[in-house]
């Protein structure tokens, strides 16, 4: 039982990690013409939350959405198709990396305007209680997003009106290159948010199962209390803000920090757990290989898929 979930989560983590590695391997071919905000380092949060939420949740995210997309859909075919700008992408190539969505898998979309999905999650959560559904609406956002007024508006509104939205705060300490110490006029955001009619759950681990458990707790409290939950998480962004490279040499941060965090790498942690649980190295290698092959296949299919026809530019401006 326990171990089945552990494997499932490992697969999900590995799918994200290996997909981003495939992006790195292929990006310089210049066929994925879309700016990449890589999830690497933060996989445990997206995977833990998305898996705990289950199939029919409504999830929103920022442009840093690869992990969310892959955790929601569990497959790489439409992912790479979208990155390659192909008709076979979920958005037919119109979205690219910054606007991924998969509504049928409960991923309601990513936005490249910082903090802009926060009120959407509140609105979706409202719709759920309106319709007396237990579905949960959640959004991911970063430590830059909380600088924006709409974060506070969304927090206040959901707290004042008793709307059980799940706010997943992903603190990587940076907005582009600017550390939060220079942007946050306070020491502890968690302390502030807990003064709102909002439940704060802190889980600052890169262990996917801890995130998973924290999310389950959040779900219980959302149902029970009819008020929002602020799930406060933390991770280290391995790569540059946008792009596929590390940037430890440009001045604003150093490699040392990475080395510390890398010891708690979410993928490694979960792999070690599987070993502890008695899964053999070869079984794990088998799992990894399957995923890698699926990704390689997805990349190949995406490369070969057709672009949308020119006329499609004008489609879907309006529905109907």
């Amino acid at each position, binding site marked *: 039982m326990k171990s089945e979930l552990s494997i499932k989560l490992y697969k999900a983590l590995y799918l994200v990690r290996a997909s981003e590695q495939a992006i790195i391997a292929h990006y310089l071919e210049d066929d994925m013409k879309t700016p990449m905000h890589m999830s690497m380092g933060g996989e445990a949060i997206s995977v833990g939350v998305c898996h705990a939420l289950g199939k029919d949740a409504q999830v929103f995210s920022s442009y840093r959405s690869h992990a969310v997309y892959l955790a929601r859909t569990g497959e790489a075919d439409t992912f790479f198709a979208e990155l390659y700008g192909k008709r076979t992408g979920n958005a037919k190539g119109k979205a690219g990396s910054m606007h991924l969505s998969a509504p049928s898998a409960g991923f309601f979309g990513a936005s490249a305007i910082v903090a802009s999905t926060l009120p959407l999650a509140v609105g*979706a959560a409202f*719709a759920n209680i309106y319709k007396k559904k237990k579905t949960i609406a959640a959004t991911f956002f970063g430590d830059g997003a909380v600088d924006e007024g709409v974060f506070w508006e969304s927090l206040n509104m959901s707290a*004042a009106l008793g709307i059980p939205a799940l706010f997943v705060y992903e603190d990587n300490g940076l907005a582009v290159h600017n550390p939060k110490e220079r942007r946050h006029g306070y020491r502890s955001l968690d302390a502030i948010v807990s003064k709102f009619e909002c439940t704060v759950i802190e889980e600052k681990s890169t262990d996917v199962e801890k995130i998973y458990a924290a999310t389950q707790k959040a779900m219980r409290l959302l149902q029970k209390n009819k008020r929002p939950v602020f799930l406060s998480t933390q991770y280290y962004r391995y790569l540059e803000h946008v792009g596929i490279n590390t940037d430890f040499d440009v001045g604003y941060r150093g490699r040392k920090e990475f080395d510390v965090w890398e010891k708690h790498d979410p993928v490694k942690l979960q792999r070690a757990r599987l070993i502890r649980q008695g899964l053999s190295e070869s079984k794990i290698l088998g799992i990894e290989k399957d995923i890698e092959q699926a990704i390689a296949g997805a990349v190949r299919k995406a490369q070969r898929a057709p672009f949308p026809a020119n006329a499609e530019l004008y489609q*879907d401006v309006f529905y109907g």
Partner: protein
Amino acid sequence: MFSMDKKNIQSKMLSYRDAICEATVQEMKRDKNVFVYGIDIADHKGIFGTTAGLAEKFGAKRSFSTPLCEEALVGFGLGSALAGLRPINVHMRIDFLLLAMNQLSNMVSSWHYGSGGQMKVPMVIRAVIGRGWGQSYQHNKSMQSVFAHIPGLKVVMPTTPEDAKGLLITAIRDDNPVLIIEHRWLYDAIDKVPARQEPMPFGKAHVLRRGKDITVVATSWMNVEALRAAEVLARRGVEIEIVDPRTLVPLDEKTIVRSVQKTKRCIVADYDWGFCGFGAEIAARVSEKCFGVLRAPVGRIHFADTPCPCTRPLEMVFYPGAETIIREVERQLKLTPTDLTKENFYSYERKFKGPF
């Protein structure tokens, strides 16, 4: 009282305000996913009476006042629409809606497109424009050109009570975001409105008045001013044709062009500033589509290109009116100026009461 129970195809006299109320009630009864929210929409004043009684009829769940946070409110509507509701978000002034410009232009307008058509956004935003009592520069904007500029938003400006009702019904049933812009001076106008009204199609202009001499394309309140101008001009035998586009997006270019092809002259009287305004769009299109037919350049009537001042005498110069239209018609037709000293034009104190 309005009733869904009996099929009723009669008309009755109704104010623009009550027409909006009726449409809202009708649609909230028809579809339980329709709800109304916004700053101060559920108080005893109910946005000039246009949301009055909703909370009593449908409960606080489907009609409620909110905290003051326009950006979040519009995003909230988007999220609720994506999750299957049909929100109506009301803003007491369009000036306040500008706080949500990001949600409108970056989010609401594009979510359907950006998802490759997977998700849809059935959302209505009602915003009030119009003059008041020395409202000055933060309570006077209109800016339909700004919203109409953004692909993915439909923009509606109803003039008559019947249009207010029919177009709101259509907006609520539309699976796209629709912005409805309502002039507060129109709320008092009373006219015939079908008791049970069907949706009124978007993209169909309304020829408010037939005339052979010149076409006046007017938006919102400017239609009232144009009708008043027509009255005065008719007395000296000048017949103006008034075309109300009603929906700016989608635009019924055909009806406008057909009218100008008949009259060979055109004035666009837009309730907004001029520079890059909707009047510019109409002037550009008419100049193109009626090239060689037009006997004179398209005349453009609009606000003075200044912030709106408070003091009444300057406000009167700021806003164009029937007189501005009359003078422009005279200019184009090379007529001597009509004596207007004995005319009574509309004002804050002397409101248009209908009928059209």
